[in-house]
C-alpha cells in the first residue's frame, strides 16, 4: 500500500517558495524527494511553475567538494557569515553518504553549520547520497532549483575525491574544491586528470602553518592554472574556517566567477546544459540505456533538449510519454 501523497497546489507553492517562506520551502523539498508517482508529477508541475516566473539566471549555485574532514561544512558556515553580512540570503544542500547495508544515514553537516536560530535568511537541508550511480542522488539538482528560487546563493556540499566531483560540477555554476593540508590525494588526482578541474581551489586550515603552505604551492604547480572551460584562471586560495581568515577573499572569488559567467552570457547556456544532463540521467534511471537508444542516443537527446525552449519538465514528461508508449 502506498499512502496518497498530500495534494499541494503547485502554483501557490511556487509563489510561497519564491517569497522565501520556510514552511513552503520545506514542503517543496519534501515533494522533490518523494518518489511516489503522483508526487513526481506534482514535482514537475512545481518546477514548471518556478521556471515560468524566472529568467533562469537567478542566484548563484556553488558546489563545494573535497575529501571528508577537509572542512567543507566549516567553510560553508564561515561563508554564510560573510554572505549574511553582505545581505545575501543563503540556501545549503549538504550531502552525506548513507549506509549500504541499512540505507540509513547520519546527516552530520549541520553540526558545523550552526547559525543563529532566528535567521530567516539561511536554510539548510541535508541529503543522504543514497548510493546511486555517479555519486549524487537525482533529487539534488531539482532541489537546487527550488533553493535558487528563494535564495541569492545556494551551496551544495558533497564529499568527494576523484570521480564524485564531476557530478557536482555538472550541476553547479561554480565548483569549489577544498583541499586538506598534507594530503597528497588532491594533487595526485589533479595530475592524473581524474579530478575535473574546479573553478576555485582552496586549501583550508591555513592555521596549521607550514603543511598548509606546502599543499598550497603543490596544488598551484599541479594545476597549470587554467581551467578547462573558457578563459577562467583558476585561483588557488588559502583560508582557515576556524580562524576565520581568507573567508572574505574566498567569497569574493566565488562571486567573481559567478559574475564572469553572467557577463560572458554563458550562465544560461550552462544551466540549460545541466538540465539536459539531469533529464538524461532521470530517463536512464527509469528506462535504462536502451531507452535512451530508442530516442536516438545520448547526444541526440541532449541536442534536442538544448535546442528546444520548452519547459524542461514538459520535455521530460513528453519524452517519458514517448518511451512509455513504446514499452
Amino acid at each position: 500500500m502506498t499512502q496518497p501523497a498530500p495534494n499541494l497546489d503547485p502554483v501557490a507553492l511556487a509563489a510561497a517558495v519564491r517569497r522565501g517562506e520556510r514552511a513552503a520551502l520545506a514542503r517543496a523539498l519534501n515533494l522533490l524527494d518523494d518518489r511516489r508517482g503522483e508526487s513526481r508529477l506534482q514535482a514537475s508541475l512545481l518546477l514548471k511553475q518556478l521556471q515560468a516566473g524566472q529568467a533562469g539566471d537567478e542566484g548563484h549555485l556553488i558546489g563545494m567538494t573535497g575529501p571528508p574532514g577537509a572542512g567543507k561544512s566549516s567553510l560553508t558556515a564561515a561563508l554564510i557569515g560573510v554572505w549574511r553580512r553582505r545581505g545575501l540570503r543563503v540556501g545549503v544542500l549538504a550531502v552525506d553518504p548513507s549506509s549500504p547495508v541499512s540505507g540509513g544515514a547520519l546527516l552530520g553537516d549541520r553540526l558545523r553549520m550552526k547559525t543563529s536560530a532566528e535567521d530567516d535568511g539561511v536554510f539548510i537541508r541535508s541529503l543522504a547520497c543514497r548510493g546511486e550511480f555517479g555519486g549524487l542522488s537525482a533529487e539534488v539538482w531539482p532541489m537546487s532549483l527550488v533553493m535558487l528560487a528563494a535564495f541569492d546563493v545556494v551551496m551544495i556540499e558533497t564529499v568527494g575525491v576523484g570521480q564524485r566531483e564531476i557530478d557536482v560540477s555538472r550541476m553547479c555554476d561554480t565548483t569549489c574544491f577544498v583541499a586538506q593540508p598534507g594530503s597528497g590525494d588532491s594533487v595526485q588526482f589533479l595530475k592524473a586528470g581524474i579530478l575535473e578541474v574546479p573553478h576555485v581551489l582552496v586549501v583550508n586550515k591555513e592555521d596549521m602553518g607550514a603543511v598548509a603552505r606546502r599543499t598550497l604551492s603543490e596544488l598551484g604547480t599541479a594545476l597549470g592554472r587554467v581551467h578547462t572551460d573558457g578563459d577562467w584562471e583558476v585561483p588557488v586560495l588559502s583560508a582557515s574556517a576556524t580562524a576565520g581568515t581568507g573567508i572574505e577573499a574566498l567569497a569574493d572569488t566565488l562571486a567573481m566567477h559567478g559574475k564572469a559567467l553572467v557577463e560572458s552570457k554563458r550562465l544560461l547556456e550552462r544551466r540549460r546544459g545541466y538540465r539536459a544532463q539531469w533529464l538524461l540521467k532521470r530517463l536512464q534511471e527509469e528506462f535504462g540505456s536502451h531507452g535512451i537508444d530508442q530516442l536516438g542516443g545520448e547526444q541526440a537527446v541532449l541536442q534536442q533538449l538544448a535546442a528546444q525552449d520548452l519547459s524542461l519538465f514538459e520535455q521530460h514528461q513528453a519524452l517519458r510519454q514517448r518511451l512509455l508508449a513504446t514499452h
Partner: protein
Amino acid sequence: MSQDTVKRDRPWLMRTYSGHSSAKASNELYRMNLGKGQTGLSVAFDLPTQTGYDSDHPLARGEVGKVGVPIDHIGDMEALFDAIPLDKMNTSMTINATAPWLLALYVAVAERQGVDPSALEGTTQNDVLKEYLSRGTYIFPPTPSVRLTTDLIAYTVENIPRWNPTNICSYHLQEAGATPTQELAYALSTAIAILDAVRDSGQIPPERFAAVVGRISFFVNAGIRFVEETCKLRAFGAMWEKMAKERYGVEDEKQRRFRYGVQVNSLGLTESQPENNVQRIVLEMLAVTLSKNARARAIQLPAWNEALGLPRPWDQQWALRMQQVLALETDLLEYGDLFDGSPVIEAKVQELVAGAEAEMARVAEQGGMVQAIESGYVKRELVVSHTRRMRDIESGELKIVGVNCYRETAESPLTAGADAGIMKADVQAERDQIAALQAFRAGRDQAVVASALEQLRAAAVGGANIMPPSIACARAGVTTGEWSEVLREVFGEYRAPTGIDIALAGQAGSAAMDQVRAGVRRTGEELGRPLRLLIGKPGLDGHSNGAEQIAVKGRDAGFEIVYEGIRLTPSQIARAAQEEGVHLIGLSVLSGSHLELVEDIQAELKKIGAGDLPLIIGGIIPDDDARQLLAGGVQAVFTPKDVDMNAIMARLVNIIRLHNGLEELA
C-alpha cells in the same frame, strides 16, 4: 596485638555531591551534612553556572537551581559558605569551563571572611578535555580551554599551594561507555596534554615543575566488575608513577603518588528494582578501598534512586552511611595491602597497562589528546564501546539483574511515597534567583564592573594569566554570564564531534533487527521517501549517551538521522526539524527540564507552521511528568527501563505510520 591497640588507617574523605535551588538552601544542606559526620564538601553547580550563563539568560530557563546550586556572583558564593570557615574546609568543586571564575569567587569570599587565600584547601575539577568527550559543559574550543586550565594550575601552584587545581577525570569517560583500558589511556593522555601545556606556557620555572606534577589529582570511576576495577587502580598508580618519573623527571616519590577521588559507577544503576543499586554501590566501593596501595583519598557515592531522579537528603544520608559502615565497622583499615604479591592481580594489572599503553600510543601518533578529540577519534571510540555495551544488554549477554533477567518483583515500598522517592525541585527557586540577580546588578558600581571586564578581556587577548583579573572581577561584582561572555567573544564557542559516525559492525543475523529494517524501508516507500528522524538535545543538558545510542541504532535500522549534538535552543530544534523535512522529532532530556523544554519546542513548532510534526521524548522522566507530557500531545515517553532498542525502533516506525494514516505493523 589486642583489638584495642590496633592501629587503624585514617579513613578517606567522605563527601556527598550536592547543591540545589539556591545558595542559601544549599548552605543549609551542607551544614546539616557536616553535622552528620561528612568530612568535606562537594559542590554541584547548576548547568547555567557550569556553562557560563546568568540565571536570567534565555538558555537557563528551567535549569536554574535544578541539578545544582546557581552561582551568579560573589553574593551567591558568600551565601553558599555562610558560617562555614573556608580555612577549615576542604571543598571540591565540580566545575570546568568556568573553573577559573568559580575559584576566583571562592578566593574573593575567603578574603571577605578574613581568610588568607593561600590557606585554602580543595579541588577544582578543571578538566575541560573530558567535557568534550562526555560531560558536555565546555564552552570554548580546546586550545583556549587548555590555556585557561593551565592558567588556573600555574596560579594555584604559586599562590594556593594546597589547592588541587585539576582533577583529571576518567569517571565521566566510564559513564560514557569507556572500558577500563580506555579510562586509563584517555585520562593519562589528558594528563600529558595538560602538563605539557603548563610546562610549555613558561609560567612555572623548570625547577618548580615537580610541584605541578605533585598537585595533579584524578577523579576515577569504579564499576561493578570490582576485581578488574581494583586492578585498574593499581595500573593507574603504576603508570602515573612511571610517567611522573620518566616524562617529567619528578624525583620526590611523594610527588609521584597517584592521588585520586572516586564517584562509583552510576551508568549501571537501574530504574527497575532500584533497591538493587545499593548492593551495586557497596561492591563498587570495595574496588577503590580494598587495596591499600591503591586506595581512594575521597569517595562520594550515588544514591539508590540514581536512575529515578535527584536524591533527597535521606537518600544521600544512606549513601554516606555505606561509607561509614565500611570505614568504621569493618576491619578493612587495619591491614596493609591485601593484594601485593598476588599473581592473579598482577597479571590483570599488566594486561590493563599493556592495553592502555597501546591506546596511548595511538593518541600520541595523532598529535596528542587535543588533536584526537578535535578529529572525533576519541569520542568515536567511546561511542563504539557504549554501543557494544548496549547490544550486550539487549542480547542478554551482559546480565543486569532486574533489567534483562529476574525481572519479576514485588511492589517496592521505596517508591510508594507521595514524592515517588525523589527530590522535587523547588519551582519558585528560579524566579527568586532571577529577582535577586537583577537586584544585585542594579546595586553595583557599573564603572568598576566595566573596568574589571576590560582587564579580563585584555588578559584573555594578551595571554596574561586569567586568574588575577578574574579575582578582580569577582570583587567588583561581575556576574558569571558577564565573565563568560567576554571570554566567548575573545575565544569563540565550540561544538564537539558527536562520535556517532562510527562504522557499524553489521548486525546481520539478528532477526529482530531485520524485521525493524524491513519496517523502516517499507514505511519509507509507502510515504515516498526514506524515514527521517531528528534527535534533539534541547537546553543545557549534556547527557548525550541516550541520544547517541538512539542515533546509532536509528541509522542501523535505516533511518536518516539528523543529530547536531547537545545544547540546542527550542527554536534551533524546531527549525532544523522543518528544514530537514523529518518525519519525527525525538528529544532526549535527562536534566529534569523536560516539561519546560517540550512546551517551548511545541510553541516554536506552531510558530513556524510545523505544529503537526509528531514529537517523542526519552530520558529521566518521572511517571507523573510522563502522563502530563502524553496529555500535552507528546506521542511517546521512553525511560531507562526501555533497554530493548529494537522495540524502541519498532515503536518509532509505528508512531510515524499512525501519524501518516498507515496501519500499524505487528
